[in-house]
């Protein structure tokens, strides 16, 4: 029987056979043309071709394949040699088999001509185009075949497809003419054998980057894998039923076989799941070319950088991801990146950069698409929200980016007014989001006006394989990814002591908080802890006590559907070999303390900066009243030590302590705040640093850290002001009650007045220059006014950021410089700065962030946090000089 006579059970079968046959014939053909030829691979190919043909009853096919197989079988033939005749045999066999596939009559041995069709990388449906091409050519030249086979084209998103065309007269001209009608076809190339045949569906990439899947691979359709998965699932289900029925009746030998069976099935399942994973590079490979094409079409210069392409993703999810990603890329090129001329004018590099990054974390695969283009005009979006009635004016003004971004994903929204050829009207983010919703993914966006936009896509991860430390905590089995485990010790050895009011172990002389893992999970659960596990994940560091340590094993983490939002501390669960279910935890989200002492601050802090939040260290002086101080001001907490009185010191000072060789003044808060002093001196000393000085405060107890929003801080009612002039504001905490925020600057100013301002040798700027200042501390306002007095500028002061913003927006006034305190109630300085920078009308106003937080890291954050300068309090000379500098730097056309 011949190929075209076969009656197929399904189209799927036929397509699969064709696909495999093409690949194997390709292996034989390419192999025969190589020196030296890969004989093993060729032998296997011939062997497989023979086998598949045999199953279908293709008699002539099997004969040819068998002859070939024999000829290139060198097992047991020490004198076997590769000869030109052998090469000819291989090639002739390939031609004949291909011809049979195309339906040519048995005696027609002419080789088919190969045409490589390259499709435009920006074409959204290359599979359809390939089908149209096939239709066009095969209608005129029967016997034409397509690779990938026609039935596979529905899922195909590659760049190059192949047509095998019977060798008729003028075949090349005919094919070119027939294909003229098909769109998006970039190139039609006839590939003759003598040439180095290019590979199918591959674009030039570095071979070494791709994972080694080429040897002994088999094509298998996603549906088949799915079927296998289902089958194994049913097997496991049946096993569960059996176990339920027979469980008690089994003797231990039978029971162990039973367990073994289950383990085998689970392993099979994991293997199959694994087979569905492909590296993201499979998608990413195509994009540099696509971006290049798009850029050329738009007359822009754009470069695409990709990273993390080895991150693996379920192939089914990846298939569906291609179009939305391409859409976002197009948007970035079209709407994001500016024209080369515009970019030069803005001081940006002429070539725009689009960065595509992928990584796996916390049970998700993350993909980030970042461009350094013009960014999103949030103010315009706010205006639109108001106009369309989606938000009231106030809501729109106060809305943060996270709230506004939802609007971007509404159908029909575009913050660009032009229509361009490529992306229609810039519509389509709603389509992208709809896609992602379907596959249980998510998308969010961040953008800085003038700087660029970043899209962040989160995709569900089917599974992840990691090595983990397995421990017992109460009734639970818990797993820690081995990368987070630093050390394991038995409890007696670790030496748990007491510091900061909590259990602690020492870690290079700094206290590391100790928590019982069981208690973290459930405070009421009785437990007995024998081991201490030190964990570290980013900035989160802690020592966790556990019951038992089982050991290290490789586990497969599977996320639990429905639970991921509820339990952010749980990355997923893993089925251990002995049948237990291990809870794999995310250390960062499990451990309550987020600061490790004395370390430089890292990325996590940026989240706090600009989110209008801060972390407060809560302490008590006496009684129940709680006080709070910004955590970043506190350096450490020590047990009280000897305080040395100094003659003539301020009545509020207790004296001086020596900490690691440094002499620190000790301020007695009880006297300063007019509280009943403790009978004995306070047991703890809190060391704080700000305004470039370090001092210590005696406190009774340091309790914990809480995160609060600045908008939750209430200013004191006016009646109280005179009485408690050192209290900046109050926070009503749900569990801790009222927390008073102390104005440490005022305290300091009272105890140690700042040195008289050095007369700055600066030219006066004159009253036409306006400087606006927002600071909630009256003392600070006074100090700034004094510092800038010699410049002769017109100053306007505000008690907080919202008042300043209201003046900017309401009056349309434009100060020449804005000085912002950072810690203010309602809206912190970062938020004010961001809002000013986000709006095109005020973006050009220079902003100085005037902060009492320690200056070590501030400067590097200045750019990220939209300020033009960051100055630590209190340095009047520097402040004045900075104002002068910023005024001088403003372009002449700036509105004053």
């Amino acid at each position, binding site marked *: 029987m011949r190929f075209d006579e076969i009656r197929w059970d399904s189209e799927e079968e036929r397509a699969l056979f064709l696909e495999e046959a093409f690949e194997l014939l390709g292996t034989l053909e390419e192999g025969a043309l190589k020196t030296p030829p890969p004989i093993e691979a060729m032998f296997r190919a011939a062997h497989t071709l023979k086998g598949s043909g045999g199953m279908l009853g293709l008699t002539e096919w099997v004969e040819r394949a068998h002859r070939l197989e024999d000829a290139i079988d060198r097992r047991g033939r020490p004198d076997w040699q590769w000869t030109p005749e052998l090469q000819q045999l291989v090639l002739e066999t390939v031609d004949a088999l291909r011809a049979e596939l195309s339906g040519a009559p048995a005696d027609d041995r002419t080789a088919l001509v190969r045409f490589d069709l390259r499709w435009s990388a920006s074409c*959204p*449906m290359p*599979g*359809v185009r390939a*089908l*149209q091409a096939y*239709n066009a050519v095969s209608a005129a030249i029967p016997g034409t075949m397509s690779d990938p086979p*026609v039935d596979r*084209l*529905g*899922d*195909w*998103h590659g760049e190059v497809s192949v047509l095998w065309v019977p060798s008729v007269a003028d075949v090349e001209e005919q094919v070119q003419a027939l294909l003229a*009608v098909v*769109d998006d076809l970039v190139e039609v190339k006839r590939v003759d054998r003598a040439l180095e045949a290019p590979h199918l569906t591959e674009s030039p990439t570095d071979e070494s980057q791709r994972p080694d899947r080429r040897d002994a691979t088999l094509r298998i359709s996603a549906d088949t894998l799915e079927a296998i998965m289902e089958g194994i699932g049913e097997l496991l289900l049946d096993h569960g039923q059996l176990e339920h029925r027979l469980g008690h009746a089994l003797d231990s030998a039978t029971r162990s076989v039973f367990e073994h069976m289950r383990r085998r099935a689970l392993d099979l399942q994991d293997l199959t799941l694994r087979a569905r994973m492909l590296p993201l590079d499979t998608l990413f490979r195509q994009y540099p070319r696509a971006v290049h094409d798009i850029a050329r079409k738009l007359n822009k210069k754009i470069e695409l950088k990709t990273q993390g392409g080895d991150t693996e993703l379920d192939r089914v999810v990846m298939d*569906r991801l291609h*179009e*939305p990603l391409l*859409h976002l890329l197009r948007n970035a090129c079209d709407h994001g990146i500016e024209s080369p001329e515009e970019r030069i004018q803005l001081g940006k590099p002429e070539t725009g950069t689009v960065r595509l990054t992928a990584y796996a974390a916390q049970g998700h695969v993350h993909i980030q698409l970042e461009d350094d283009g013009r960014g999103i005009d949030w103010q315009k979006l706010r205006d639109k929200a108001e106009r369309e009635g989606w938000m009231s004016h106030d809501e729109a003004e106060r809305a943060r980016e996270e709230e506004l971004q939802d609007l971007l994903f509404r159908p029909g929204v575009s913050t660009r007014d032009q229509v361009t*050829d490529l992306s*229609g*009207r810039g*519509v*389509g983010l709603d*389509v992208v989001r709809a*896609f992602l919703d379907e596959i249980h993914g998510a998308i969010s966006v961040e953008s800085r006006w003038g700087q660029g936009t970043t899209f962040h896509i989160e995709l569900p991860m089917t599974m992840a394989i990691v090595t983990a430390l397995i421990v017992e905590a109460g009734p639970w089995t818990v797993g820690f990814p081995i990368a987070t485990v630093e050390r394991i010790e038995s409890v007696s050895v670790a030496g748990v002591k007491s510091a900061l009011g909590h259990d602690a172990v020492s870690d290079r002389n700094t206290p590391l908080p100790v928590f019982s893992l069981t208690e973290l999970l459930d405070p009421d659960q009785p437990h007995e802890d024998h081991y201490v596990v030190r964990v570290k994940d980013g900035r989160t560091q802690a020592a966790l006590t556990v019951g038992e340590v089982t050991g290290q094993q490789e586990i497969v983490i599977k996320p639990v559907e429905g639970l991921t939002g509820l339990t952010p501390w749980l990355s997923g669960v893993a089925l251990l070999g002995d049948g237990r279910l291990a809870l794999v935890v995310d250390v960062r989200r499990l451990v309550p303390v987020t600061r490790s002492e004395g370390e430089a601050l890292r990325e996590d802090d940026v989240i706090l900066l600009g989110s209008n939040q801060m972390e407060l260290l809560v302490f008590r002086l006496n009684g129940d009243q709680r006080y709070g101080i910004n955590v970043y001001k506190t350096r450490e907490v020590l047990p009280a030590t000897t305080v040395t009185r100094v003659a003539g010191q301020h009545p509020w000072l207790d004296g001086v302590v020596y900490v690691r060789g440094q002499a620190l003044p000790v301020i007695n808060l009880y006297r300063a705040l007019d509280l009943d002093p403790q009978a004995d001196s306070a047991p703890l000393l809190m060391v704080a640093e700000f305004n470039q000085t370090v001092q210590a405060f005696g406190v009774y107890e340091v309790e914990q850290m809480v995160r609060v929003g600045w908008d939750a801080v209430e200013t004191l009612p006016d009646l109280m002001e005179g009485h408690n002039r050192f209290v900046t504001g109050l926070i009503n905490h749900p569990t801790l009650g009222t927390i008073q925020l102390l104005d440490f600057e005022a305290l300091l100013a009272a105890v140690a007045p700042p040195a008289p301002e050095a007369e700055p040798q600066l030219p006066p700027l004159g009253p036409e220059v306006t400087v606006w200042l927002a600071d909630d501390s009256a003392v600070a306002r006074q100090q700034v006014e004094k510092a800038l007095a010699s410049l002769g500028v017109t100053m306007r002061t505000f008690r907080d950021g919202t008042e300043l913003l209201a003046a900017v927006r309401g009056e349309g006034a434009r100060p020449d410089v804005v000085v912002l305190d950072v810690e203010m109630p309602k809206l912190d300085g970062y938020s004010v700065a961001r809002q000013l920078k986000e709006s095109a009308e005020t973006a050009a106003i220079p902003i100085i962030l005037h902060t009492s937080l320690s200056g070590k890291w501030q400067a590097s954050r200045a750019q990220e946090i939209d300020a033009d300068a960051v100055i630590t309090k209190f340095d009047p000379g520097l402040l004045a000089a900075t104002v002068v500098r910023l005024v001088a730097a403003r372009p002449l056309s700036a509105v004053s």
Partner: protein
Amino acid sequence: MTILIADDAAFMRMRLRKLLEEAGHDVIEAANGREAVAKYQEHRPHAVLMDITMPELDGVAATREICQSDPTARVIMVSALGQQAMIVAAIQAGAKDFVVKPYEPERILQAIDKWARVG
């Protein structure tokens, strides 16, 4: 030329109608696949712009019926992103080409000029 628009969204039909009429074509509308097949038989337009997802009878099935009854029929699919498999099925059922939504007006007109049956 006479063009048949099949789409269940009235808004889409209206926009397409406007576009085509401004280009000098005559327009017939159908709101679902069944109606599309019926109107095709009745009016024998020069080309059909067929949406994929429609009630009663979807675009692929309607295309099949139309092309079976009239092998010279020129059907152009109009679809959203992400429906490649269905478009492939549509082409196998007889459609000639496709345009992606949101569409650029020129693309629709070009497709019609290229494929519409003349006479």
